[in-house]
Structures are given as C-alpha cells and as structure tokens.
C-alpha cells in the first residue's frame, strides 16, 4: 500500500516535471497564472454614465455634453470633455450599495461545498502514465503529438483535483466566442489582451460585475484601443450572462474564472 502511494507520488511528480519541461504552454509567459491582484472595482459607469435616475431634463445642467459651433466650412476640433459633475458619483455609490446587497444575498444562496483538494488517488492509472512516459520518449515528434500528450495528461487530471474537464472548458470558451464581437478595427499590438475575472453563481449567472484585471490601463486616455477592446470583452461577458453552467459538483473549480480575451492572432491579419 505504502509503496504504491509512493510510486504514485513519484510518477505524478515525474509527469509534472515532464510537463513543465516539455509542454510548450509552460514556457509561454502569456499563459502563466498571474497572481490575483486585488483591484478596487470601479464601475466605468461611475465616471462616464449619465445619471440613471430620471430627472427633469434641464439643458443648462448638462455640462457633460460639450457644445460647439459648427460652421459650414470650418469645422471644430473635438475638445476634451468637461469634467463630470459630482452628483453622478453619488448616484454611482448608491448603485454600488445595491450591488453589494445583491452580492451578499447571492452569496448566501450559494454556500459552496468545500471539497478536499486531493482525493480519489485510486482512480489513478499507472499504466496510462507508463504510456505517457513512452510517448514522451519520442518527444522529437511533431507538434500534434505533443498536443495529444498534453490533452491526455490533462484529461487524466480532473478526477485528481476537481478541475473542469477540457470539454467543459471548451463549452465555456465557445459561449464567450459566440458572444464576443471583436473590434477588428484595432491595430495589432502584442499587448492587446484583456483579462477579465468573473465570479459565477451555481446557475452560471454572474455573481458580481466582471472585473478587468488591467483596470488602470483601461482608463488611461492614451489607451483608447485597449479601452475599446476591454469594453467589447465586457459586453461579451454580459451578453453571455448567464452561461450554461458546468457540472455543479465542481462548482468550487469554476465559480471564479479568468477569461483572457486575446484577439492578437486576428488583429495581426
């Protein structure tokens, strides 16, 4: 018994090392799992939105809209926008409270089932590992083979750590792909990738507003391309809300997901 556990651990480690050394995904810096930085969540609407509360429309109060004289030939250059008035901030904070309440309520509804991280070692099949090792011997094979290896390796893991299966991941990916209208007018730039963290309820609906991890960049005036891209990704997330929920037994593994909206290959043309 003891020796089988030992061998199991050793073999697991061997696979891990192999994966780290040989699988291309581990060498790709883009795919590194980034530390989750706690970013203050600011609704973009706080900054730019018109007050949601319906008011008597008073044009003189609407300072946020610039006015300008347009002559027939001499057209004006677009001026920078006037700073927004204070009342909007108040509105937004009201809204924030509402959102918070909503979140608390929902949290209550979805008490996550805590699960041990490692379990069901018995499902582990040493033969399969042996197979993989065999395969890895001829690593000088074509890329397709490596991919196969990767898939096999991953396919064998869900039972170990409660992860989403590849097909579940694919199902989620497919939904967001369908929802996402890529702003293909954006010029190619290698940093054009938007990372959005979403938290989901057990039914697949958004638990809280999606969070753009590169929040600061999004709000820089010089990053209008990135802002447009991030907004398109946010629209995709909201358009897809609620997503078709994966296996509820693995809720713990998908209640938080990071979506990397990466149009670079498309923009490269």
């Amino acid at each position, binding site marked *: 018994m003891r020796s089988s556990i030992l061998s199991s651990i050793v073999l697991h480690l061997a696979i891990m090392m192999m994966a780290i050394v040989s699988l291309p995904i581990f060498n790709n810096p883009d795919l590194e799992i980034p530390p989750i930085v706690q970013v203050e969540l600011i609704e973009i609407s706080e900054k730019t939105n018109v007050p949601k509360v319906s008011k008597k429309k008073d044009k003189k109060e609407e300072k946020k809209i610039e006015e300008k004289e*347009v002559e027939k030939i001499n057209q004006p250059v677009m001026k920078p926008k006037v700073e927004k008035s204070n009342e909007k901030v108040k509105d937004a904070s009201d809204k924030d409270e509402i959102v918070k309440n909503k979140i608390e309520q929902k949290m209550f509804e979805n008490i996550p089932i805590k699960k041990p991280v490692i379990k069901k070692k018995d499902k582990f099949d040493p033969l399969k590992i042996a197979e993989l090792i065999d395969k890895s011997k001829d690593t000088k094979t074509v890329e397709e083979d490596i991919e196969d290896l990767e898939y096999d390796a991953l396919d064998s893991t869900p039972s*170990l750590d409660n992860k989403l299966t590849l097909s579940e991941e694919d199902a989620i990916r497919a939904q967001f792909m369908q929802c996402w209208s890529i*702003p293909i007018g954006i010029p190619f730039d290698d940093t054009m990738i938007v990372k959005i963290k979403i938290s989901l309820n057990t039914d697949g609906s958004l638990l809280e507003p999606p969070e753009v991890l590169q929040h600061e960049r999004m709000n820089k005036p010089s990053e209008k391309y990135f802002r447009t891209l991030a907004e398109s990704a946010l629209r995709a997330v909201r358009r897809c809300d609620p997503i078709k929920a994966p296996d509820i037994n693995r809720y713990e593994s998908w209640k938080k997901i990071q979506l990397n909206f990466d149009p670079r290959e498309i923009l490269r043309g």
Partner: protein
Amino acid sequence: MIKKTIQKLLFFYLVIITNASALIEIDITEGNREPLPIAVTNFFYAEDAIKDLDQISIDVSKVISADLERSGLFKSIDQEAFIQKTASMHIRPRHEDWRLINAQALVTGELEIDKDKLRVEFRLWDTFAEKEIEALVLITTIDNWRRISHMIADKIYERLTGEEGYFDTRILYVSENGPKNNRIKRLAIMDQDSFNHRYLTSGKELVLTPRFNPVKQEITYLSYFKNLPRVYLLDIQTGIQEVVGDFPGMTFAPRFSPDGEKIIMSLARDGNSDIYVMDIKSRVVERLTDSPAIDTSPSYSPDGKKITFNSDRGGSQQIYVMDNKGRNQTRISRGTGNYATPVWSPRGDLIAFTKNFQGRYFIGVMRTDGTGERLLTENWYQEAPSWSSNGRVLIFYRETKADDTGKGHSSSLWSIDLTGFNERKIETPEDASDPSWSRLIQ
C-alpha cells in the same frame, strides 16, 4: 529523511494543484466576426419646432446608419424591430429593450432649431454595460445636416472600434464618359458616400490623376491644357487654376507632401522620367532621382521624411524607398511580378501598391521594408489605391475587359478593407477612375 523529502514534494504538489484550481483561465482567441449590431434611432425634436424637422430627423439617422454599415464593422438594426420608441430614450433608454433586439450599442439624438441654426445632440449607449459612452452637441446651419451626420458617425465609429472614423471625408476622382478611344474626362468631387457630387472641370481638356492637398482645400492634377501635359494646382474654393512650375517637358504623377507645402512629381525629359519636388510658395525645384529608368508615382511617408516610388531601373517595375533628399534609394518589393503606384499609409506602417502578375492585377499592401506582402484583391485590371484617412480602407479603380469592338468596357471606383474583406463599389454618376480620398475635413 526520505519521508521528509516526500512530504516536501507532496507539499509542493499540493501548492501547485491548489493554485491551479483557484482560478481557471480560459483563453478566448476567436470571436464572433459578424458586424456589431447597432440601433440608430431617428433623432427626436419638439413638435412645436419652427421648422419641420421630420425629414431631417429621419435622414440624419439614415446617413449615420449607412456610414456605419458601409464600414463593414456594423450592422444597423431595422427600425421596425425597435421596441422603445418614446422620446424619453434619449435620456434614459430601457437597455433591456435594446438588448432584446440584440443591439450592442444604441444611438439616440435630439434636434432643435436655435436662432436659425440646427442643434444636434447625440448620445451613444452601451446597452450591456447600461451606460452612455459618448455624447456630443453640434450646431450648424440647417442645410449642413449631412456633414453633422458624418461627424456623428465618425464619433461612433471611433468609440466602438478604437480607431479614427473616416466618414467626414470626400473623394476626388476623374469622371469618364464616351467611347474608349475618345474618352471625355472631368475632375469631380463628392462626399465619401457619393452625395454632394459636383464637377470641377468642363471636360474640354484631358485631365488625369488628381490628388487632395492633405491640409488645404486644394488639389493637384495633370491637365493636357493646350496639348502640353503639365501638373496643375486648383483651389477648390476660389476655382483658381495655375500650372505648377515651368518645366521643359511633361510633368505628371503629382502628389502633395504631408504638410501640403510641396508637390512631388515626375518630369519626363527626352524620354527619361525622374522625380522632382517643388516648393509651392518659393517655386524652388529639387531633383530627387537621376536614373535612365522610369521613376514615377512618388508618395511621401506621413512624417515627410521618406518617399516611395516605382522604377524599372532593375529591368522591371519595382517599388523603391528613399529619403526626402533622394538618398539611399533601395528596392523594397521582392515578389515576382511588376509593382507600381506605391502609396504610403497615413498610419505610416504600410505601403499600398498595384501589382501585375501573369496578366492579372492586384491591389496589395506591404510593410515599408517590403516584407509582409498581402494581396487584397485580384481582377482583370485595377490600380491606383488611395488610403482612407484612418488607414483602414483603400479606394482604387477597376476596369472591365472590352470585347473586340470595345463594348463591355467600364471603369468604376471600389473600396476594400485592409483585411481584404468588405469590397464595395462606390457609386458615381458616370464611369470613374483615379480616386483620391481626402483626410478628415478640417
């Protein structure tokens, strides 16, 4: 000892697994490439307005929709499908209503007459984020509503695609009619959407290859006035024409420098064509190339520091780049076939060209060092690409093959996206060629 090591390793393994399971990352590298659905509503106006704004209200929305659709990046939703139709939506749209008909963005607006001037206020809404993302008020004379609409379309385009719009622009071209062996050619100018069309010359003289000054209401072109083919300047506002310089031979293929102060062109002398540049004010002329070959179709880079042109000095027509003093002339086109009419993109990163390969004609783009050649469209005959102000679209002209009697020949303007998609014919009253696309109107 071994036990400890195993424990350590086990711990390491645990850390990795827990980390991985804490946050699944999903890469979305493809999207829905359908044009973005957008709802453009008719702009509202008070019923008691002095002037009846009914038609303008509808037309403004039509022009905006048409501009956006023509870009290929937007799909304008049929107004029949609209659920919310009240004036209140300009202040507070019911976003759920708009999401229901699949609108990702919504355009609302209001018209008002203020001291004989038209005041147009518009807002752009993100229906999923449920927020206003753009708002603007424009005031103009009433009959200028068309330009206002283009400017609004530009704002919307810019906000949703991230790049500058190109709708408040004009197209200058050569209007053609008559039999192929006796074509009447006139300079014509129109808005980018083919409206406000007018002729600039009478057709008495043969005119070719007009180009916009990028900063002034001025054009340069080739005219056969008095059977002396020379480059001319025409002030669009005053209608004053003048010949450019006093050259001992045919001057042709003119283009302005990016600051609009100089004209670069070819001078043909004793059968040899070289590239010259002339300062418009001082009339000082500089010769930039000196080869026994045909050097023509010059085009400045947007920073004015470099010039691309085509030359057959190597035995076949190829594209070259040199600095603005004519130094460091280097060939950049590398593919098989002939290359011509290089035009530097306003973004600076690409050069558009005409390519002739095995009897077929292509419009393509390459990087400024000649790498990354991409052919966008192939046809029997087409040439003379000109960039949209934002560097996203190319306009060019295409001719159809005639039969043995000359029937079937036609010439028309077309546009195509850098992606090679969204090829569109541009409507003109008669046949058309030699297009030049203006920068955004100042």
